[in-house]
């Protein structure tokens, strides 16, 4: 065992492996920043290259891409209010307002530090307690997953506190949209109007690009300073000011391009202390949800955001540019990466779509991830863990080194930046399934986003419903199919009961909190 451990360490610190990991991080960050360009897509692009590389080198490249992509997605969410990946949607909620206040460097610094901590925490879990965690995750049945997703959905309440009707309506629209496509249990077509393009439903990322990017682009049409879009960033974001002009809000009051703070690029000590708790929450939640097959990054990011909001006692600042609101989802989505590697390494079961690709890529090298990997190729298994550790270190170094360049993105002339973003949105929507139909869907969601903004309706509940709706239905119906309609297991299974209990707490907390805010 010690021999394999050492062998693994040596493999991971070979110059070629290290270089591949670094290149992977860089590519991942770039790919993650492009809206619609998923980590999965980036991995597929480099896949043929890895056929000729040594497995240890390939795995470094892939893990770099994985960790880098998670971080890169947040950069565009923070800088442009256009999440590059689904997992980074929660980061935009507070990241973009920080940029609007001229603190792009601070926001990015927080994101990078939190991502590093989250990634490192999950790497430690992977290294120390992977088998035990995987066995725990195996106890989760459909009923438990349903309750977990249900808990995720109750977060809607904390985004709907300004207007319950608008918030819940937004969520219902989302849930209605996810019913389009094949019925998950019967396999029959629902609301497809005999169009095969609708059979697999609306791709979440297509909707995300439309909902976030199109209103953002329209906003930029009639505000030519970088501050033009500010304050209206996320439609109806939580607790956003009732008077449109409060914190750095009104058009024209925002700093001009040159005023954007470039000095404070390294995260300040005071900020780091402030994000201790949110990072802790995000790391734990992210790692754990990463392990559960199918739960994935977006739900981890939103749950962490919500818990950080409740636990830090600064909930009123969330949504207006709180560093805690950037740190929690960032720590979570990078912790998901290590978490998702746990069932892959120990059971050969992918935790998310990216690890599914990783399994395929390793198989192409004749390495089958799963319980046997530690028996047959323990050196490789440990090498993978060390590579994952290095990927997180490179992520931190590359991102910190590149911050100066990155913040300039916000300062770039809008006349260049916005057309580029528009093109990327169309290309991104198209490339998900190589389908022009998805581009129309993306524009359709753009119109929906504009309408919701005009109605001052929060968009986050819609987003959550889109991410979670399908899993909610699938798990509920499969659980009920298995139990033949008996619902007791939702309450007798300890995990399910725990999640349902937390759901009640989450709803009550939001309702009471909202009432207290309105009282004075």
């Amino acid at each position, binding site marked *: 065992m010690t021999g394999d451990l050492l062998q693994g360490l040596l493999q991971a610190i070979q110059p070629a492996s290290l270089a591949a990991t670094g290149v992977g991080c860089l590519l991942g960050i770039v790919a993650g920043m492009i809206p619609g360009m998923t980590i*999965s*897509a980036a*991995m*597929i692009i480099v*896949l*043929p290259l890895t*056929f000729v590389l040594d497995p240890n080198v390939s795995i470094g490249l892939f893990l770099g891409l994985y960790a880098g992509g998670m971080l890169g997605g947040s950069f565009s969410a923070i800088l442009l209010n256009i999440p590059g990946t689904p997992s980074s949607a929660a980061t935009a909620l507070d990241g973009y307002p920080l940029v609007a206040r001229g603190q792009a460097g601070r926001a990015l610094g927080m994101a990078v530090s939190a991502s590093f901590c989250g990634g490192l925490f999950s790497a430690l879990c992977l290294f120390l307690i992977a088998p035990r965690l995987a066995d725990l995750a*195996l*106890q*989760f*049945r*459909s009923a438990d997953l349903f309750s977990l997703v249900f808990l995720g959905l109750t977060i809607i309440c904390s985004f709907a506190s300004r207007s319950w009707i608008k918030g819940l309506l937004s969520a219902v629209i989302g849930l209605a949209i996810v019913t389009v*496509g*094949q*019925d*998950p*249990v*019967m*396999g029959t*077509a629902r609301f497809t109007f005999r169009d*095969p*393009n609708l*059979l*697999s439903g609306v791709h979440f990322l297509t909707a995300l690009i439309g909902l976030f990017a199109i209103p953002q682009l329209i906003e930029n049409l009639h505000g030519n300073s970088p501050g033009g879009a500010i304050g209206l960033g996320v439609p109806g974001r939580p607790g956003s000011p009732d008077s449109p002009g409060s914190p750095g809000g009104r058009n024209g009051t925002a700093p001009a391009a040159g005023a954007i703070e470039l000095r404070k690029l390294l995260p300040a000590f005071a900020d780091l202390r402030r994000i201790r708790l949110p990072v802790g929450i995000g790391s734990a939640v992210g790692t754990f949800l990463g392990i559960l*097959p*199918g739960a994935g990054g977006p739900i981890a990011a939103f749950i962490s955001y919500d818990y950080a909001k409740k636990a830090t006692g600064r909930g009123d600042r969330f949504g207006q540019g709180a560093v805690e609101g950037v740190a929690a989802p960032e720590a979570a989505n990078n912790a998901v990466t290590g978490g998702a590697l746990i*069932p892959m390494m120990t*059971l*050969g*079961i*992918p935790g998310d*779509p990216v690890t*599914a*690709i990783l*399994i*395929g*890529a390793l*198989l*192409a090298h*004749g390495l*089958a*991830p*799963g*319980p*046997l990997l530690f*028996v047959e190729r323990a050196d490789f298994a440990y090498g993978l863990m060390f590579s994952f550790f290095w990927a997180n270190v490179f992520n931190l170094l590359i991102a910190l080194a590149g911050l100066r360049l990155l913040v300039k993105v916000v300062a770039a002339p809008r006349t260049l930046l916005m057309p580029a973003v528009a093109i990327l949105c169309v290309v991104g929507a198209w490339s998900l*399934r*190589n*389908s022009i139909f998805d581009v129309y869907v993306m524009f359709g969601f753009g119109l929906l986003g504009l309408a919701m903004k005009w109605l001052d309706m929060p968009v986050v509940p819609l987003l959550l419903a889109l991410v979670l709706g399908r899993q909610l239905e*699938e798990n509920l119906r*499969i659980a009920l*199919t*298995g139990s*033949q309609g008996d619902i007791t297991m939702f309450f007798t299974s300890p995990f399910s009961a725990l999640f349902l209990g937390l759901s009640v707490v989450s709803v009550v907390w939001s309702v009471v909190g909202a009432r207290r805010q309105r009282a004075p």
Partner: protein
Amino acid sequence: MATVLQHGVEYRLAEDGRSTGDASRLSMLLAALLAGFGLFGPPAAAQYPERAIEFVIPFDAGGSADIEGRLLAEEMGAVLGVTLVPVNRPGAGGALAYSYVNDADPDGYTVMWTSTSILTITNLGNVPFGFDALDHIGRVEHQPLVFAVATDSPWSDIDSLAGDCGNRGRPIRIANSGTGSTTHLGALAVMQEVGCEAVHLPIGTRRRNATVLSGEADAMVAPLTGALSLFRAGRLRFLASLGADRNPIIADVPTARELGIDVEFDLFRGLSVPMGTPAEVQARLADAMTRAASSDAFQRLADDLGLTVAPLIMGPFEALLRREDARVRAIIQSADTLTP
């Protein structure tokens, strides 16, 4: 009628070689045979691949079926001298990709990585055409479905599982990869044969194995390649293979037929093109496919995955498709309903 003797195989040709569908298929076969034996490349096909060929993959990027397709495309590109560009068109169990290829120009520049799903999708009516709406180049490999339980489950053979059916206060639950998928049909067929009314859980590929290990499902039907690593690690027990013959990788596992269960379900992958693609082009593709399938790189991947590489081109492949199509239709029709 003219009789042609070629490599010991006797073919009867119609007077007008192109007037009937059968005859044109026959000439395709001939051309393929000749090309396959490397005797000569048909002159028309010499110009054929002039530019990149779109290689449509009906699966999500990154799964083992996708990676296998990509490797085949790469190896075929080496044979044909042009690039085969893999394009993923996932969604609706392959229905989107099949519709796309059905509508594509039959010029040989759209080739599809087909699987058994073409038989399930067409028979379920998810696309408005049958499997024969496309021309089929050939099969590359095949693998059996397996009937698996967790190692810590009380059943060591299908009989004991069937014996427990209905005596446990709840029905037997069998996981599959999705309603109407081949794994679902395989499970339906086996349970029908042993006379057990089971509950079928369409759990999807991602969580299918996990539900068997956790005990949420009592058993599952899965493609061999999807369950092999857990089997080798001793976490899964295979009660039966649904293949036609014993698979050398799992030589100890009996076939359903040996157990007296009249079910046979092999999964295959191969190539298809839009209907009406010129015969010379099809022959050229069949030749490239056969050579790519026997390349070292592809053989190695197939070995690692647990696939049996067995190229089968055009005529015999069409016959196989027709036979399997009837089988799939029979299972779908005999199940009162596909719902759990």
